[in-house]
């Protein structure tokens, strides 16, 4: 009886499932996230690939995480501004210089806005740039290797937030200051902020072939907070737009004091004009102190150079280069549509979204429709630059992205939703809730002339009940929506790592094809590389001992080392002789005060060990590399400081 009842229920459920499938198919997914075709949309079968890469900033993790869309699977965490014991980044001798700054070695950073390099207004997938907010820096990650290869410190900046966005041919990656500060830094009363502090907007040139970064010039702006920025594109290529807040120039209780003015500004900077001025010798070289760290993939080693001066430009020196566009209520996001015509100011405290017109802006400049000036910078008349506004779309607008089909998508932090609206008519088309308190959103190809549509994901600040609880601290949640139809459809929740601020995403094909599988051993120019068994040796220089070591499945060479003494500084220079895809080896020695090394095929990495105890200490491979991984070990003998143990090394001497 019971059995029969169960099977009846089962049949009914199967029937119900089929019915719901059919329904959802017919009604274009209106049955919501429970219908099975939603699951199919995000299902990537085992062994198959995602269609898009998403690079999601780690915020206070200081790093960048790599995800696949639509599955929401995390593939990798790329260490950028923070030490990463998993690979030894920032711990190994080769990578420590990457984290050098004018304030010394800094083991942590706050990463915010990744942006992918572009050619002719399209995402090209060569490099990805990301800013460090706290100790202002810009990093470049090479998407061939997914490694951080360059970090440049930004002097005169503080709270490097309106960064790191690239122009349409990656001429510049731009870094604007959030906090204005005394320039140059000096000892002065905080109360004298107003009129004395300045905000630096830095234009960092990117060499077309190598991608090498160099600060071309800094525009020294009035002492406002520069919040976010985006490049002009298409017709507005050559301009850059920055939102400002705290035009009140308050130094205390900004939550009240920076919300006094009805309107703040979007600063429009004609960088082409300033570039020309600078190319003709304009601007002044100002003493400054900033680190430029470059990783060489042939020596597998980073070097840090301290730079001593930077070129600064006062906007008043270049008439017609900078204008202010009044924008209501402390605008946060500053987003430019794919055509380059519309500049959206997301006023945090405003009921409406303000959209400026680039064409009208040019006309207003031409017609000198000014409403005054701030520190010599003309303020354009609000009505003369306004394209339109989206009336009361939600509460607390933050950021806007575009699908390339004439639609814009704006996040609303307070009302926890994404609102889709139409460019030009400003009508709201759809709104969908997010869970909860959304910050940025990303559409693949977002900051470019050609967004790649299909999906949009929202990065939420508050997770609460979305996942199984993990104590008071929860990873932040992202939500993936299908935006291919008129209405947005929520497809998937997936957890992210750290605090994702913004993300850059793009179709996978370009990156996938160029992705490097190994480092060529032949090209390894590391000064301490042991490229074959013949090169392995141990060399003493005073109290420094350099071990030229190799690894291959499944042994280290040498694996028996004697003659180390207390007080020695032992450098393990480990070269991975493998030339096969995805065969890294690890290295750890008992009592190592840094982290392990994870060495990719063909690569050399160095760990310094300063033994504190006499004894025979084991080292081993930390990455399960082969069936004989547990055999991959060795011993190093440490003798007393005054001992006469000879320096000897070997591997496999007693073999057959």
């Amino acid at each position, binding site marked *: 009886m019971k059995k029969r009842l169960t099977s009846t229920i089962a049949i009914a459920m199967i029937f119900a499932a089929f019915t719901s499938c059919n329904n959802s198919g017919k009604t274009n997914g209106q049955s919501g996230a429970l219908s099975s075709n939603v699951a199919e949309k995000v299902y990537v079968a085992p062994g198959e690939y995602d269609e898009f890469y998403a690079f999601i900033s780690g915020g206070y993790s200081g790093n960048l995480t790599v995800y696949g869309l639509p599955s929401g699977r995390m593939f990798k965490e790329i260490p950028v501004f923070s030490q990463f014991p998993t690979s030894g980044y920032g711990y190994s001798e080769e990578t420590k210089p990457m984290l050098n700054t004018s304030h010394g070695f800094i083991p942590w950073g706050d990463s915010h806005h990744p942006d992918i390099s572009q050619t002719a207004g399209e995402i090209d997938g060569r490099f990805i740039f990301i800013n460090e907010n706290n100790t202002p820096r810009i990093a470049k990650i090479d998407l061939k290797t997914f490694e951080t290869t360059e970090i440049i410190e930004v002097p005169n900046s503080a709270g490097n937030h309106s960064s790191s966005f690239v122009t349409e041919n990656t001429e510049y990656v731009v870094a604007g200051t959030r906090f204005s500060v005394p320039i140059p830094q000096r000892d002065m009363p905080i109360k004298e902020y107003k009129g004395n502090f300045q905000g630096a907007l830095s234009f960092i040139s990117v060499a077309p072939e190598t991608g090498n970064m160099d600060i071309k010039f800094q525009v020294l702006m009035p002492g406002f907070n520069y919040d976010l920025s985006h490049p002009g594109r298409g017709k507005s290529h050559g301009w850059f737009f920055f939102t400002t807040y705290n035009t009140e120039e308050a130094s205390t209780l900004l939550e009240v004091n920076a919300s006094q003015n009805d309107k703040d500004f979007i600063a429009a900077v004609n960088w082409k004009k300033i570039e020309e001025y600078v190319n003709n010798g304009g601007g002044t070289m100002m003493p400054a102190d900033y680190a430029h760290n470059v990783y060489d993939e042939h020596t597998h080693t980073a070097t840090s150079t301290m730079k001593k001066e930077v070129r600064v430009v006062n906007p008043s020196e270049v008439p017609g280069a900078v204008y202010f566009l009044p924008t209501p209520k402390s605008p946060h996001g500053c987003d430019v549509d794919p055509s380059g015509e519309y500049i959206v100011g997301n006023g945090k405290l405003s009921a409406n979204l303000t959209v400026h017109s680039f064409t009208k802006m040019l006309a207003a400049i031409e017609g000198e429709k000014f409403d005054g000036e701030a520190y010599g910078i003309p303020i354009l008349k609000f009505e003369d630059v306004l394209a339109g506004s989206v009336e009361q779309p939600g509460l607390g607008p933050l950021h806007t992205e575009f699908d390339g089909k004439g639609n814009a998508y704006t996040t609303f932090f307070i009302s926890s939703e994404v609102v889709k609206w139409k460019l030009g008519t400003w009508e709201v088309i759809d709104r969908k809730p997010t869970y909860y308190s959304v910050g940025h959103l990303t559409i693949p190809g977002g900051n470019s002339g050609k967004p790649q549509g299909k999906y949009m994901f929202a990065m939420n600040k508050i997770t609460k009940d979305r996942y199984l609880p993990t104590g008071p601290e929860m990873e932040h949640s992202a939500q993936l929506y299908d935006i291919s139809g008129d209405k947005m459809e929520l497809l998937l929740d997936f957890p992210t790592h750290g605090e994702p601020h913004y993300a850059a995403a793009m179709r996978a094909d370009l990156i996938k094809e160029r992705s490097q599988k190994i480092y060529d051993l032949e090209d390894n120019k590391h000064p301490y590389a042991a490229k074959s068994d013949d090169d392995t040796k141990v060399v003493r220089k005073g109290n420094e001992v350099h071990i030229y070591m190799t690894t*291959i499945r499944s042994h280290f060479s040498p694996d028996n080392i004697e003659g180390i003494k207390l007080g020695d500084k032992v450098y393990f220079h480990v070269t991975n002789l493998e030339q096969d895809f995805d065969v890294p080896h690890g290295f750890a020695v008992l009592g190592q005060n840094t982290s392990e090394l994870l060495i990719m095929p063909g690569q050399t990495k160095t760990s310094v060990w300063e033994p504190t105890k006499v004894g025979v200490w084991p080292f081993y491979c930390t990455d399960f590399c082969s069936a*004989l991984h547990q055999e991959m070990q060795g011993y190093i003998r440490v003798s007393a400081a005054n001992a006469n143990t000879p320096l000897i090394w070997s591997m496999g001497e007693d*073999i057959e």
Partner: protein
Amino acid sequence: MTKALNIVTGLFVLLLISCGGKEEKKKEGFSYEKKEATEKVVKKAETIPASKRVDLSNKGIGPITSMALNAEIDQTMVTHGADVFKKMCTACHRTNKKFIGPPPAGIFERRSPEWVMNMILNPDEMVKKDPLAKELLMEFNGSPMANQNLSEEDARAVLEYFRTL
């Protein structure tokens, strides 16, 4: 007392055995040796290690299906091959003695050139599917032959170098 007796008995037994043994060997030497020899032959067929076995017909599994070695050794190739061998192979191979893997000296007396090429170029599949390579993996304690991503040209040069060993 008991202990002493035990020792004496033990010695006596030993004496008996050793005497008897000697005698037995002498007595049944011929037939016993014959027996042993037959056993040996059988045993040999079973336990000849894969590294010593001769199989010139097996071409292995991989990109190389047929190739011929010229009668004359190409010295330019040998020099290049020796260099590649040093850089890519010496972590696990010594030319004339067993190391992590088997020595390449005299390899062509035991293996076809195709088999050697495929072992270099396609080791992952070889140790999974080729019967000899599978046995070799076990003989060498499960140490896998690493794929060092040699080009066909480099692998061919290494073979030429092996001919000189």
